[in-house]
């Protein structure tokens, strides 16, 4: 049984286009310090995906760095999806900038694959206007169709049954499974054809379910054998909005709970969904519906993200496309359900269960205090106690997943000039002003060669009473980023123990003393 014949429309470099930057300007979208999308002009300067921001900027100094904003991408993409509704009601959004739909009905209606493809290309090009081009590909199965669209200039049809031959010479890396691709490469399997030539049974026996999915894709089949039973109706979850929402914020707030509920219902049945229908109803009775599809099973957070993006697309769109009234009802229906291959909960007080509880509590606190009120620590390389660990907003992170960023061994490099352990237990976010004087009452200073003008004898915090210094050590000079005139810092640090028993880390910078941390 071959895969469902699918048409894929791909707007090349969509994040760049959505940011409103012309494609002939070198630009890159950066997320978590890595390049996630580039413009063709940037690629000419060898700026590629996964590069560090600094490396990209060194290759192309004129590079325009853009923020990663999936909500914006989705919002600007919505009118284009709406335009495709003229062809078929079953448009699925894979991610902002890429849609797919099965061709069976529309192809017959418009008189063949070629005609349908020309139609789709015209419609999307018109909707895009001057903002860039699109590619259209038709093949058996969404995987091959995406590859066909990528190869298309600007359109490409793989004849029915021709998909295996089309896939055969493509490199293994087109499967988006780096670990598996690495293993297969070491076994000498470098093209999809080489993998497809193996018996399915043996691939399953050796590489498990993941290997079989890869084999099925390489053979031009659907990733999973088609599910025969459609998901039962009772899995749909919905929420009434009273008063109706005409801005994104209140609706997005409910989106999270709704996504959570759907995920819970599926989870209770041991399933997860890979395709979800997001629907909305307005006060004027308008019906809005969109299908989102993902490669793997959608997590609750992923469903919530897609729901929020879609709301942004509907409500935040241009006047011509946005609904005429506020949204009064929202629903989520799983469209394609697969068995959840997720974690089995541990027998004794498992990590996953406690992590889940914590995540829910965090979501409630965010509801009470607002987004950005909850943070989790992540290691960064640095010499300061204050910046060795950065606080990352919790909504940006899946708390239940493994978090390598919270592991100390993530910090690479020795960072010479760090203070010896133990580290201070109280780090002042805003350095507290202080005064350190010698026996004569003169402010202690540090010379350019790193020597003190005199031994420190007394300390006063924010103009408070003087405390005698019982013991001290230093100065430890620290000169950072001397090559950058705007961000360079020169400091000297001292550890002090005062007569009240407190140990402090004090810093001299530009002639004034600060308390940087307290060893509480």
């Amino acid at each position, binding site marked *: 049984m071959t895969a469902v014949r699918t048409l894929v429309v791909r707007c090349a470099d969509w994040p760049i286009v959505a940011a409103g930057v012309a494609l002939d300007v070198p630009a890159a979208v950066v997320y978590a310090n890595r390049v996630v999308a580039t413009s063709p002009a940037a690629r000419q300067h060898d700026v590629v995906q996964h590069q560090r921001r600094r490396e990209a900027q060194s290759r192309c100094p004129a590079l325009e760095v853009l923020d990663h904003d999936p909500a914006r991408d989705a919002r600007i993409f919505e009118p284009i999806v709406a335009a495709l509704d003229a062809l078929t009601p079953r448009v699925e959004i894979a991610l902002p900038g890429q849609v797919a739909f099965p061709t069976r009905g529309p192809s017959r209606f418009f008189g063949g694959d070629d005609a349908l493809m020309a139609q789709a290309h015209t419609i999307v090009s018109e909707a895009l206007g001057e903002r860039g081009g699109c590619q259209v590909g038709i093949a058996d199965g969404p995987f091959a169709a995406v590859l066909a669209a990528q190869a298309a200039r600007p359109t490409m049809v793989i004849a029915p049954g021709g998909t295996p031959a089309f896939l055969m010479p493509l490199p293994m890396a087109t499967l988006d499974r780096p670990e598996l691709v690495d293993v297969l490469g070491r076994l000498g399997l470098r093209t999809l054809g080489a993998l497809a030539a193996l018996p399915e049974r043996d691939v399953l026996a050796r590489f498990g379910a993941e290997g079989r999915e890869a084999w099925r894709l390489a053979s031009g089949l659907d990733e999973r054998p088609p599910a025969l039973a459609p998901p039962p109706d009772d899995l749909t979850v919905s929420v009434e909005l009273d008063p109706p929402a005409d801005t994104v914020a209140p609706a997005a707030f409910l989106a999270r709970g709704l996504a959570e509920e759907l995920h819970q219902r599926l989870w209770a049945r041991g399933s997860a969904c890979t395709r979800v229908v997001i629907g909305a109803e307005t006060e004027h009775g308008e019906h809005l519906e969109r299908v989102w599809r993902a490669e793997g099973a959608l997590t609750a957070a992923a469903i919530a993200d897609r729901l929020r993006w879609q709301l942004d697309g509907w409500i935040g769109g241009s006047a011509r496309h946005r609904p005429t009234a506020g949204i009064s009802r929202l629903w989520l229906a799983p469209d394609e359900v697969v068995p959840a291959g997720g974690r089995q909960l541990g027998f004794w007080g498992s990590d996953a269960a406690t992590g889940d509880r*914590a995540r*829910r509590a965090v979501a409630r606190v965010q509801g009470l205090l607002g987004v950005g*009120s909850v943070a989790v620590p992540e290691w960064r390389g640095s010499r300061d106690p204050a910046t060795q660990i950065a606080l990352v907003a919790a909504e940006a992170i899946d708390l239940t997943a493994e978090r390598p960023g919270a*592991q100390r061994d993530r910090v690479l490099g020795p960072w010479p000039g760090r203070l010896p352990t133990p*580290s201070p*237990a109280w780090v002042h976010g805003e350095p507290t002003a202080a005064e350190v004087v010698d026996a004569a009452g003169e402010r202690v200073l540090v010379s350019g060669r790193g020597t003190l003008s005199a031994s420190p004898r007394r300390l006063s915090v924010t103009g408070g009473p003087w405390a005698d210094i019982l013991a001290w050590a230093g100065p430890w000079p620290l000169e950072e980023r001397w090559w950058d005139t705007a961000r360079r810092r020169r400091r000297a640090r001292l550890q002090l123990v005062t007569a009240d028993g407190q140990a402090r880390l004090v810093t001299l910078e530009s002639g004034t003393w600060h308390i940087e941390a307290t060893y*509480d």
Partner: protein
Amino acid sequence: MRSGVALSTLGELAERVRPVTLTREQRLPVLPALEGLLPGAGLRRGATVSIGSPPGVGGVTSLALALVADASRLGSWVAAVGLPSLGLVAADELGVALERLVLVAAPERDAWGGVAAALVDGFDLVVLHAGRSGVRPADARRLAARARERGSVLLQLGPGWPEGADLQLQVTRARWEGLGDGHGHLQARKVRVSRSGRGEAAQPRRADFWLPGPDGLVAVVADDVVVDPVAPARPLRAVG
């Protein structure tokens, strides 16, 4: 040797999976050094613990971190509320698992109750700093009742707590070692902690600890541990 280790591990496991435990017997583990200080050698689930010190004596934050470290390492989640200046590197050094630590901004006085209640539902350990405005007595009482019901441990830091906690720890003395007059660096700290409280913690007790010791670990002070004073380095002079 090896079988001895295996046997003790097995014993530990047997203790953890013992099928029937009364609520008051359920305890979160603490570092071995702190076991002697706490009734039942652990933090009883549902208890409130206040940690304080007389003015001018430090060590409250470190003691709180040391108390939650072992439970955190073994899988409990820790929330810290109103502690934006918490030294996270120090937390890591004392053994807190940073992947299970969440920091919550200090809520307004009115939102306090709701936020703390939500956290008690989701976290085994909640470290709270009341801040300048303090906490309303009614909020504090409700919170303690909720923690008792949910089996979370509340650790209250600093002043501003109206209710007497089940277990009250006071750092009464703290002395740093390793720092000389212009040489050395902070290496170890000896603290004296005294305990008072209600119920099983009613009997006062006092103990001396390294927080942390010269090797970076929390340990009970044994008299024969001596920190080598670092050889005084000659102070640098400007030459040439």
